[in-house]
């Protein structure tokens, strides 16, 4: 393709691409992100391609593999257009039926339709799916329509029009003003006003500037950024080019976590294609502005999601954070003024430029504008990536979108903000999703991980889980973090082992204060949050562990006992063999028993039992 040299030429290219596409094109769209592939989407894509080829329909029906659509629980998702019939959990064997119904135009394959959990009725079309109804998918909706490895799809939908608008009709300062007025705050967890960050960078002295995309999404349970990187990489590139234009940078980096190979792959292709068209490189669209982007992979270190550690990693060093007396917008990468923003933050920039800051500011609350993508996971009926307007309540997300708690269990808590965040109990379900509201309640927005828990989760064990995670990931440079987390973890381990003492809780609180006040970076400073928030809302569980030597949720090994309910046990003996210690015995068809002296509480018997006869006390 010849490199485009002006905005007029680019718009002509867009028109050409649009004209070459039939509005009534028959198309089969398959969700094919990393999570979709984990659920078997690749064989489905292949099966469609082969079956259509066999039937001689390959020129008539388009097969489009896209990124994740967000509704992970029912992936692989297949959508048939025109019309938008949506099929769930599709397997390769289902392909001939789907094509039959599509070509004969006689309804849908009933067994593959999604069932509305509230009504029990099947829904046929994508827009009827209740999971999507309360969402506002400004960013995510695009993924459903585009092949991330084909820039034409993005352009046909209006992609890079924000860039064209910025380059042709806005001064850099006007771009910054628009982002400022929109109220966009960083989506990586910090929530810093983006416009202000860009302005600081522009105003800082120096000739060289950098823009960086932080794609080192490390919070366990959070994969929103991956969804965007894989499914719509151009939205991020476009945002970065706009940002670079605004602050005066000519080099940009996308720092992608090591564990995201498909994201690296798709972003790489997007960069290549953008260069070919002339959207990256020298004299972009004839504007005189030069800018190019490189991908760098992370090395598997959570701490490199911290901005100063990330920059050290880009410089070829270990990811040890620096105290931020001087902000990165003044001295960042290689001591030059640098803007580092999260994936989702960058992806919002083109929307703000295209639709105007007023539109963006009209969504959300006073202090938190726009939409936010969350990964709704854990003990929830509908797992997936949900995009909602700021200000929606946790209850609406968990119950109206997520469908509530499975297996008839009771909601216990929702954790947001990853290892820096906190747990919120049932009493706070009507809290609106808002940076400041969540912080006031003892948690934080974080990058978007939202883990739902039920009565079988032990909150003390959960606090321990996060501290253990941070202990592994701490860079080890500063004493408060290195020693503080280690000692806090020791205390929690003792509590979970039944060796807690009354002095432990005040000691944990003292250590928390120390970490919050003196740790060098946000990893250490926010490390106490899971402990503090669980102490705040679930103190009774700590006290049960310490004073009664009991784990009410039935999780902490040293404090529980497995037993078999003689009323429920049928004596089938299925649990006997899986027991690694041979602790289960009994006559055939007679209730079995567990020898607690031998039992190591591995749970194999409970997993195997089909009669729900194995319990924990």
């Amino acid at each position, binding site marked *: 393709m010849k490199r485009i040299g002006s905005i007029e030429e680019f718009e002509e290219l867009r028109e050409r691409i649009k004209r070459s596409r039939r509005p009534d094109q028959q198309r089969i769209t398959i969700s094919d992100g990393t999570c979709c592939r*984990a659920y078997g989407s690749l064989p489905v894509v292949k099966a469609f391609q082969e079956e259509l080829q066999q039937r001689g329909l390959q020129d008539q029906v388009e097969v489009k593999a896209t990124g994740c659509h967000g509704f992970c629980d029912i992936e692989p998702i297949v959508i048939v257009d025109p019309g938008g019939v949506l099929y769930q959990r599709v397997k390769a064997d289902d392909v001939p039926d789907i094509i039959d119904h599509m070509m004969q135009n006689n309804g849908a394959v009933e067994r593959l339709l999604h069932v509305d959990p509230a009504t029990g009725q099947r829904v046929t079309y994508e827009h009827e799916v209740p999971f999507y109804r309360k969402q506002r998918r400004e960013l995510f909706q695009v993924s459903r329509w585009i092949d991330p490895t084909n820039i034409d799809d993005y352009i046909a939908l209006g992609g890079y029009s924000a860039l064209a608008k910025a380059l042709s009709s806005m001064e850099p300062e006007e771009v910054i003003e628009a982002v400022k007025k929109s109220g966009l705050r960083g989506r990586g967890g910090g929530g810093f006003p983006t416009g202000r960050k860009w302005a600081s960078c522009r105003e800082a002295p120096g000739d060289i500037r950098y823009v960086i995309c932080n794609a080192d999404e490390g919070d366990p*349970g959070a994969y929103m950024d991956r969804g965007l990187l894989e499914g719509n990489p151009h939205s991020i590139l476009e945002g970065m080019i706009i940002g670079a234009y605004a602050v005066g940078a000519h080099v940009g980096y996308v720092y992608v976590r090591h564990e995201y190979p498909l994201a690296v792959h798709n972003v790489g292709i997007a960069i290549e294609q953008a260069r070919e068209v002339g959207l990256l490189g020298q004299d972009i669209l004839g504007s005189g502005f030069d800018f190019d982007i490189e991908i760098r992979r992370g*090395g598997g270190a959570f701490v490199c999601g911290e901005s100063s550690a990330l920059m050290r990693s880009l410089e*070829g060093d270990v990811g040890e954070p620096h105290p931020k007396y001087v902000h990165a917008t003044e001295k960042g990468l290689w001591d030059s003024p640098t803007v580092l923003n999260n994936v989702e933050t960058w992806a919002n920039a083109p929307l703000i430029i295209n639709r105007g800051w007023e539109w963006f500011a009209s969504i959300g609350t006073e202090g938190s504008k726009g939409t936010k993508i969350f990964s709704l*996971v*854990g003990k929830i009926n509908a797992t997936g990536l949900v995009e909602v307007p700021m200000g929606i309540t946790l209850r609406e997300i968990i119950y109206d979108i997520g469908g509530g708690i499975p297996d008839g269990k009771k909601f216990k808590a929702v954790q947001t903000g990853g290892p820096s965040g906190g747990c919120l109990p049932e009493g706070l379900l009507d809290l609106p999703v808002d940076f400041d509201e969540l912080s006031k309640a003892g948690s934080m927005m974080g990058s978007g991980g939202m883990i739902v828990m039920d009565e079988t989760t032990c909150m003390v064990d*959960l606090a321990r889980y996060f501290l253990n995670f941070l202990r592994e990931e701490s860079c080890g440079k500063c004493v408060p973090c290195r020693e503080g987390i280690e000692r806090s973890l020791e205390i929690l381990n003792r509590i979970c082992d039944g060796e807690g003492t009354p002095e432990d809780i005040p000691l944990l609180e003292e250590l928390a204060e120390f970490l919050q006040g003196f740790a060098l970076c946000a990893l250490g400073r926010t490390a106490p949050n899971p402990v503090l928030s669980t102490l705040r809302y679930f103190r009774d569980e700590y006290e049960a562990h310490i004073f009664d030597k009991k784990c009410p949720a039935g999780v902490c090994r040293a404090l529980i006992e497995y037993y078999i309910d003689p009323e429920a046990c049928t004596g089938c003996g299925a649990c006997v063999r*899986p027991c690694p210690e041979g602790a289960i015995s009994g006559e055939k068809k007679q209730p079995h028993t567990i020898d607690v002296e031998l039992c190591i509480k591995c749970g194999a018997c409970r997993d195997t039992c089909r009669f729900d006869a194995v319990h924990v006390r």
Partner: protein
Amino acid sequence: METGVLALSLVEGIENVLDRHHHDRTAIIAILQDIQDEVNCLPEDALRYVSCALGIPLSKVCSLATFYKAFSLQPRGRHVINVCLGTACHVRGAVRVLEAVERNLGIRAGDTDENLQFTLETVNCLGACALGPIVVIDGEYHGQMTSARAEALLKRVKARDAS
């Protein structure tokens, strides 16, 4: 770790990687990643070679190789098993799954068995939370794992190897 004369193929492999990155010192992490992708680990000799070639002190190269979890200084087994310990999987019982795998293979997370057949690693979220707990073997995802299903899975893998 044994050191000695570097196999010619290893030298060639490293030189290719260095060329691809234009011998750029700041790309050291990417260079080490590419070497590990080719050799399946970072042997000491490779670290020494890179240190010399790029003029980076060996202590620094070792510091990088041990700081970033993506790097393995020990050779890895034929099958790499990843157990996800992300929060969603944890809440669904991933610890019990990990323990079952550890018991079955006789190794702890982070280790490789002496026959170099299995390497067991944990990962802090694969982002496939809808099917958690997840175990990945050689890139293949297995969801909704329990300790019993983990045992069955390992049995199948070992049987395939034996046949």
